[in-house]
C-alpha cells in the first residue's frame, strides 16, 4: 500500500496540476489577506474562496485522475493486491496531495497574515472539504464506467453542494416559514458538507452574532462546543461513508 501511495504521489507531482492549484490558492489568499485591512474580513473572503474552489477543483481533479489512471489500476490489480488496498491507496495519495496543496496555498498565507482560532478552523474545514470531495470523486469513479459520464456527474455533484442545495434549502425555509423549522434545518444542514464547513468557520468569527440575532436555535447549538463536535463528526461521516461505499462497489466491479 505504501509503495502504491508513493508512486501515485510521484505521478501527481509530475502532473503539475496540483502545483498550479497550490500556487493559485496562494496568490488568491495573499491578495485577499493583504488587501483587507480588517483581518476578520480577509478570513471571510478566504472562506468564500475555499467554499467555491475547494469542492469543485477537488472533485473534478480527483475524478479525472482516477479515470485517467485506470490502466495503471488494472495493471496493478493483475498482481496479488487486494482491490480495497488499491482503491484506498489511490484515494489516500490524491487526497493527501490536494490537502498539501491547500495547506501550502492557504495555510501559509494565513499563518503569516493572521493567526487565531478562526484561521485554524478555516484551514480545518478546507481540509475536510478536500477529503470529502475526493471521497465523493472516488464514489463517482467506481459507479461509472465511462469517463465523460463520470466527469459530468462530478460537475453536477459539486454544483449541487455549492449552489443547488442552498437553493433547495431556501425554498424549504420559504415554504415552511410558518412552522418551527429550526430543528429540521439543523438536520438538513448536516446533509451538505459545504454548509457545515461554512457554519463551522462563521461561528468562530464576530459575524456569528448576526446569525444568532433572531435568537435562532441553531446558533446556540452550533456555537457551543457540542455543536462544533457534531459538525466535525458529520464531516468525518461524509468522508467515511463514500469511501466504504466505493470499496464495496469496487470489490464486485467488472473492470
Amino acid at each position, binding site marked *: 500500500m505504501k509503495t502504491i501511495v508513493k508512486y501515485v504521489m510521484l505521478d501527481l507531482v509530475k502532473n503539475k496540476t496540483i502545483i498550479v492549484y497550490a500556487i493559485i490558492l496562494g496568490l488568491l489568499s495573499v491578495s485577499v489577506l493583504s488587501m483587507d485591512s480588517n483581518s476578520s474580513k480577509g478570513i471571510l473572503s478566504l*472562506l*468564500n474562496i475555499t467554499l467555491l474552489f475547494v469542492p469543485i477543483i477537488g472533485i473534478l481533479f480527483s475524478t479525472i485522475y482516477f479515470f485517467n489512471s485506470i490502466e495503471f489500476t488494472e495493471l496493478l490489480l493483475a498482481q496479488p493486491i487486494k482491490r480495497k488496498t488499491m482503491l484506498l491507496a489511490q484515494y489516500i495519495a490524491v487526497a493527501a496531495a490536494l490537502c498539501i496543496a491547500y495547506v501550502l496555498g492557504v495555510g501559509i498565507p494565513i499563518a503569516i497574515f493572521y493567526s487565531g482560532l478562526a484561521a485554524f478552523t478555516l484551514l480545518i474545514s478546507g481540509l475536510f472539504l478536500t477529503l470529502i470531495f475526493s471521497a465523493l470523486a472516488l464514489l463517482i469513479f467506481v459507479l461509472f464506467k465511462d469517463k465523460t459520464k463520470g466527469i459530468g456527474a462530478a460537475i453536477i455533484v459539486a454544483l449541487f453542494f455549492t449552489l443547488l442545495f442552498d437553493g433547495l434549502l431556501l425554498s424549504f425555509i420559504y415554504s415552511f416559514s410558518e412552522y418551527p423549522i429550526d430543528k429540521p434545518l439543523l438536520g438538513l444542514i448536516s446533509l451538505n458538507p459545504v454548509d457545515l464547513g461554512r457554519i463551522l468557520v462563521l461561528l468562530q468569527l464576530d*459575524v456569528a452574532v*448576526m446569525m444568532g*440575532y433572531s435568537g*435562532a436555535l441553531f*446558533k446556540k447549538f452550533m456555537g457551543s462546543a457540542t455543536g462544533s463536535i457534531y459538525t466535525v463528526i458529520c464531516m468525518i461521516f461524509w468522508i467515511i461513508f463514500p469511501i466504504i461505499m466505493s470499496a464495496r462497489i469496487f470489490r464486485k466491479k467488472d473492470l
Partner: protein
Amino acid sequence: MRVVIAFAVIVSVFQTTSCLSMGIKVYPTLNSLRNAISNAHSGDTLLLQNGIFKEHDLVVKKRIVLKGTVNSIIDGENKFQAFIVQADSVVIDGIEIRDIGRSSITDMAGIRIVNANFVTISGNRFVNNTYGIYLQNAERCNIIGNTIHSDFKDEVSGGNGIHAWKSNHLLVKGNNISGHRDGIYFEFVTESQIISNISFGNARYGLHFMFSHNDTYSSNTFKDNGAGVAVMYSRGVVMLNNDFLHNWGDASYGLLLKEITDSKIEHNHFIRNTVGIHMEGTTRVDVKQNLFQDNGWALRVQASCSGSNFTGNNFIGNSFDVATNGSLMLNLFDRNFWDKYDGYDLNRNGVGDVPYYPVSVYSVISEKIPSAMILYHSFLTDIIDKVEKVMPTMIPDKLKDDNPIIKKIAL
C-alpha cells in the same frame, strides 16, 4: 458654668473664623461627618480629611460645600446609602463613595439629590455602588467629571450610574461610567445637556432615556455596552459627535430609537455595532453626516418610521446597509456614500447616475424569515443579491438613494 459658656463662645468664634479662612476640617472618627454637617451653617465648607468615614444616610439640608482629598472615603459597608441632598446649591467635590448597599425597597445611591436645585457634584469617585448619583425632581444641577464604576454586572439587582427622574436643565459632563446597569438613565428629564461622557461596559444600556424631551447629547462615547443606547418616547433630541462603538451581541444596538420625533442625529460615528441605528415608529428624525462602519446592519428602519431624512452619511464595510420589514418607505435617502455602490458617473459630477438600492434581497428574506440567516455568506445568497440588483423584484423599490455620492464624504 461661666467657664463652660466662655469656652463655648471661644469655640464658636474659632469655628467661624476657621470656616471663613479655609473651611472646617473633618476627621474620620465616629459620626464626625454627621455632627459636622448638623453643626455647619449655610455657606460653610467642610474639608473631609484622608481616611474612611463609615457613616451613612447623611442628610444635607443646608447650603454647604463638602470637599474631599485624594483619600477621603465614605464607606456604605454594602448596607447603607451615603448622602441625601435636600438643599439648593450644595457642592460635593472630590470624595470617594463606595460600597453602597442594595435593597429591593429603596434605590440606594451614593449621592441622592431630592427636590433640590443648583447642586454640583464634581470630581467624585463612586466605586461599587448600586446607584452612583440619583437625581429626583432636581433642577439645574451639574454633574461634572465624576468616575462611576461598579463590578457587579447584575442587570436585575444592579442600579444605574447616573439616574435622573423628573428633572430639568441638568448638565452632565465629562463623567466616566462603567459596570452599572445603565450608564446614564433619564426619565422625564428635559432641557438637559449631556456632554463628553464616556459610558462603557454597562450591563444594559450605555445611555437610556424615556420621555425626556429637548435634551442635547454631544461628544459622548458609548462603548461595549450590553445593548448599546436606547432612546424612547422623546421629542426634540439632538445627538451630535457621539461615538457608538462595538456594542456587539445577540441583542445589541448602537442606537435604538423608538417613538422619537423631531430629532437630529448628526456627525456621530457608529462603528462595529450589531445594528448601527434601529428605528421604530420615529417621525421626522434627521440622520445626517454620520459614519456607519463595520456594523452588522448599519440601519434597520421599520416601516413604521416616517418623514426622516438620511443624507450625507458614509456607509463603509457594513454587512447589510439597510434592512426594513415592509415595502412601504416614507423616509428619504439622498446623497449618501455607499461603499457597495457599483454604478457609474458618466458626467463626472461626483454623483452616481443610477440609483442605489441599499436593501439587499437577502436582508429582505432574513428579515421576513430569521431562520434564513443559516445561509449567511453562502454562495447562493451572493448570487441572488447580484441577480436582484439587475432586476429588482423583491426589494422595496421605493427605498433607494437617487443621488449616491461616488467618493467618501469628508465629515
